[in-house]
């Protein structure tokens, strides 16, 4: 009797598994997307932005500096074949750097705040602009 029960339960388990398998297969086959409904999307890799060929590093003057002399030194480094344009409210000059790219010059500033724009322009026309504020004051506070 016991043996029959075991066989029956084994057969029932097998039938159950088979039914579950068929149900899963039918569910999966109904989920398939028709090839006409699919679309191929191509993703192009982003092209890297071109690196600037010119650079400008200013050693002097320090931005927002307060000085007690009206002559200010402007020095820095740029691409050796660039030109450096220096413009302030009443002054303009164009200088060329040395073979290693160093440049230095002096300019006269006015009373109070002065904006000095330094532009390095490369032979290909590419440019870098830096602006510094220098204040002339002899006030003690």
């Amino acid at each position, binding site marked *: 009797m016991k043996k029959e029960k075991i066989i029956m339960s084994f057969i029932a388990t097998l039938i159950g598994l088979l039914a579950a398998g068929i149900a899963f297969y039918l569910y999966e086959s109904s989920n398939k997307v028709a090839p006409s409904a699919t679309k191929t999307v191509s993703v192009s890799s982003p092209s890297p932005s071109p690196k600037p060929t010119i650079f400008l590093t200013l050693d002097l003057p320090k931005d927002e500096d307060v000085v007690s002399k009206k002559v200010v030194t402007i020095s820095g480094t740029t691409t050796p074949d660039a030109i450096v344009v220096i413009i302030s409210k009443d002054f303009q000059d*164009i200088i060329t750097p040395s073979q290693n790219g160093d440049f230095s010059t002096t300019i006269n500033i006015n009373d109070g705040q002065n904006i000095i724009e330094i532009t390095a*322009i490369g032979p290909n026309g590419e440019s870098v602009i830096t602006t510094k504020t220098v204040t002339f*004051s002899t*006030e003690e506070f």
Partner: protein
Amino acid sequence: MKKFLFVILLTTYYLLHTTYVNAATPTPTPTTNSNSSDDALNQQITDLKTRIASRVAELNLVEKRGIIARVTEVSGTQITVSDLKEKTRFIDVDELTRFSNPSTTESFGISDIAVGNTIGILGLYNKESRRILARFVNVVSLPIIIHGVIESVDEKLFRVKVISENEKVIYLDVEKTTITFSYSKEKGLVRSGFSKIKGNERIIAIVQTNTDEENLITATRIILLPEISKDPKQENSAKK
């Protein structure tokens, strides 16, 4: 043998545990001229040292700075500004702050400063709080520097049409007072004239804005760069 070993051990013990005692230095005898005035002098020196130390610390924390910025807000004893790098800065004003405006002869104070004004601030910058305690505030007018390429020249109206770096069309009014320079590698920066201004050349102009027409501005100085190529960014956008 045991006795010998005992002696060796005892000797070793004493050798290792010998302590050296420094001779005691004689206690300085109080000098006869030591009195209360010396104590007061010492106290004064200590006070001075403390004051110098605190002043040095204060000087390291605070430094003089001068900035130019556009006013974004004025409230009580504080002015909020946006500097040339578009960074928000906070300016404190007190009873010692002096205000001035070169375009007015009347008294000028914080209440006369309006949002949008460009002001120069000279004061003490605190590195810790990153605020400036203003000592001098004055209204300033900034020179505008235009970098661009000449598109055309109107010889009748003495006007130059310039395409700026940000693709803006600007008409430069060349007045009799306009100073024109031209740069070449051979001659450097030399004085030039309106007749030397040609189309398709690179230009730098220092200008003043005219209130009448938005795009028409008077050039105070012009720098012509005929040997310098156009900015590749402008050339690329022109091709597009």
